[in-house]
């Protein structure tokens, strides 16, 4: 009972401090909102309007038609025009364009042969190379892999619009049906992920800073000589931030639904549950950091040390499956990785905590273990 009173006293005091600190209080609301709008609009993995150059060595009616139909895909935007491939290469080097399309002088001829090849396909499987040469060449600045692979997709661009002839593509080997994000909008995947990023940042930073601040300002010297225990102090201090975290999650998912049309397919209870799990894990992480950091500045630095891998390795930006095994191991340790899976599962696929047992248990285990570590490390003395 006395213990409960002491925890409430700390929580109440912490709430007042939080509310009177205008900047921090503003951060609680503005940070998720601004980041949501920024990331939601800015991060787009489907690339469009890549600036490219054209080297049209044919300059025939057909080549013009070809250029128009490439433009029509909206993948590229022809911003420059050169006479030789060398000039185009220089433009790529200079960063004026990302790629260049070179149309050889015999393009009409090549295309005609291609059509013949296509019509013979059924009867003669091994047709000559000369009959099936590509009709043009892309030279690409391959350093950005996303842009390179986007342009690679143009390799098999259908050419139905070019002539009256049927599509010169072979039939697809597989059919693909896309669930959960049929229009392939990046925001659908990004928005639930932002919850993970924002919570990682605010939860870890706020708790570690708020505890280190007491140390720095000398409040702790007084508190230590009172009957309050370290575990009571820690619990009392993190309770307000649980609500802060839930509010932030609500803002992001709600605004994401409103502005980016992100569906909320799962139940709100499941959403609450996975968020609470992650908040607990992050708060505990903040507590551990606060036992390492001596100043608020150090607490910030340690938070950023954890932030970057949480953004880059958690699957927020790049798929987990694409990472090398070593990176996957690191990712597995981070609570953010497990939360990314959980919240995307709940929000987008109507998954539940039981169905994604591994990730839920991991967060739970992390919290318990972390709390033990933090309370051992948090000594109630000045030594």
């Amino acid at each position: 009972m006395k213990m409960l009173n002491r925890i409430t006293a700390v929580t109440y005091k912490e709430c007042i401090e939080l509310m009177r600190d205008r900047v921090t209080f503003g951060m609680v609301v503005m940070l998720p909102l601004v980041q949501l709008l920024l990331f939601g609009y800015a991060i787009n993995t489907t690339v469009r309007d890549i600036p490219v150059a054209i080297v049209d060595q044919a300059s025939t009616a057909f080549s013009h038609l070809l250029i128009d139909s490439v433009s029509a895909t909206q993948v590229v935007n022809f911003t420059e025009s050169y006479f030789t491939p060398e000039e185009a290469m220089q433009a790529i080097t200079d960063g004026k364009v990302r790629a260049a399309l070179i149309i050889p002088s015999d393009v009409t001829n090549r295309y005609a042969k291609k059509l013949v090849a296509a019509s013979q396909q059924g009867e003669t499987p091994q047709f000559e190379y000369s009959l099936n040469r590509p009709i043009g060449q892309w030279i690409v600045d391959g350093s950005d892999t996303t842009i390179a692979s986007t342009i690679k997709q143009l390799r098999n661009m259908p050419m139905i619009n070019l002539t009256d002839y049927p599509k010169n593509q072979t039939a697809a080997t597989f059919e693909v049906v896309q669930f959960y994000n049929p229009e392939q909008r990046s925001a659908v995947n990004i928005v639930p992920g932002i919850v993970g990023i924002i919570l990682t940042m605010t939860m870890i930073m706020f708790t570690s800073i708020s505890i280190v601040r007491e140390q720095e300002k000398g409040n702790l010297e007084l508190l230590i000589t009172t009957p309050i225990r370290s575990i009571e102090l820690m619990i009392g201090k993190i309770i307000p931030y649980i609500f802060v975290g839930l509010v932030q999650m609500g803002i992001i998912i709600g605004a994401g639904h409103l502005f980016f049309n992100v569906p909320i397919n799962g139940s709100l209870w499941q959403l609450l549950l996975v968020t609470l799990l992650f908040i607990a894990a992050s708060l505990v992480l903040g507590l551990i950091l606060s036992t390492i950091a001596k100043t608020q500045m150090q607490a910030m630095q340690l938070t950023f040390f954890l932030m970057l891998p949480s953004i880059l390795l958690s699957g927020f930006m790049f798929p987990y499956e694409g990472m090398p095994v070593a990176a996957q191991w690191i990712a597995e340790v981070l609570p953010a990785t497990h939360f990314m899976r959980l919240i995307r599962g709940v929000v987008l696929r109507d998954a539940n905590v039981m169905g994604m047992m591994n990730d839920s248990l991991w967060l739970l285990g992390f919290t318990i273990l972390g709390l033990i570590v933090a309370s051992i490390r948090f000594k109630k003395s000045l030594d």
Partner: protein
Amino acid sequence: MSEYAIQAKGLTRKFGDFTAVDNLNINVPRGKIYGFLGPNGCGKSTSIRLLTGLLTPTQGSVNVLDLDLPKQVEALRLRIGYMTQKFSLYEQLSIEENLRFIAQVFGLDRHAQRKRIEELLSVYELDKRRKQRAGSLSGGQKQRLALAAATLHKPELLFLDEPTSAVDPQNRREFWERLFDICDTGSTILVSTHYMDEAERCHSLAILEAGCLRADGTPQQLMQDMGAKVVEVGGEGLRQLKEVLTQLDSVISVAQQGVHLRVLIKDLITEPIAWLRAQVPEQMNTRDIKLVRPSLEDVFVNCTGEGRQ
């Protein structure tokens, strides 16, 4: 129950190679005001932290209110109050909120809380400012608030670390009136200071320097047993005379005080006035020289002086 509130034997604390408190032996009697007097960096705060259980001693034993530290430190928490040298309440909270927080932490029930807080607000003349944030209070107001917080749970033993460093002389008097009131209720107070006039008000005191105990006892006793004689020298050209006197072996210190030089002379000189005249006859003949009662400052200067950075 021991007659002493605090007993420390061979108390030593090191920070790395540096010895901040060196083999301190002190006994603080119950119900008295006990002072720690010493220059900056002499280890006053460190000693108080050792006695409150905030720091663990490197060596030595501490017994506070019949409890052995650091073993029984938790039991001690409810019985002591500590006012830190640096203001350590919450600047974002108002006076009232700060006091309520402390009251809750010490487990006072709602009714007792309200009563005690009202009482403290009026004793320390803070009731008109109860809604003001602690961060915006003046130095003296902060000090009163801190004392109110430290005494909220009526501790048997109160530690005050330089409580009046930001307080004007008038308020310092009032502050000390409050301390004697608290002392009157049977509480023991340990107060650190570097002001002589404050030290003189203590029932007894310890003079610390460079982590060591240089002298202890009541102020009167310390002045009597100083082991040095004090003379005042008047006249012209005191700056030059000071240079000359400082060179003499039996002169402990020379300090100018307005139109006088205050000279501390070792006790083995039985006739200090005659001796002084004999040392530098050409300068001393016409001056008036008189023997005066030693002050606490003289005691302090006499027993410190090796110094520390």
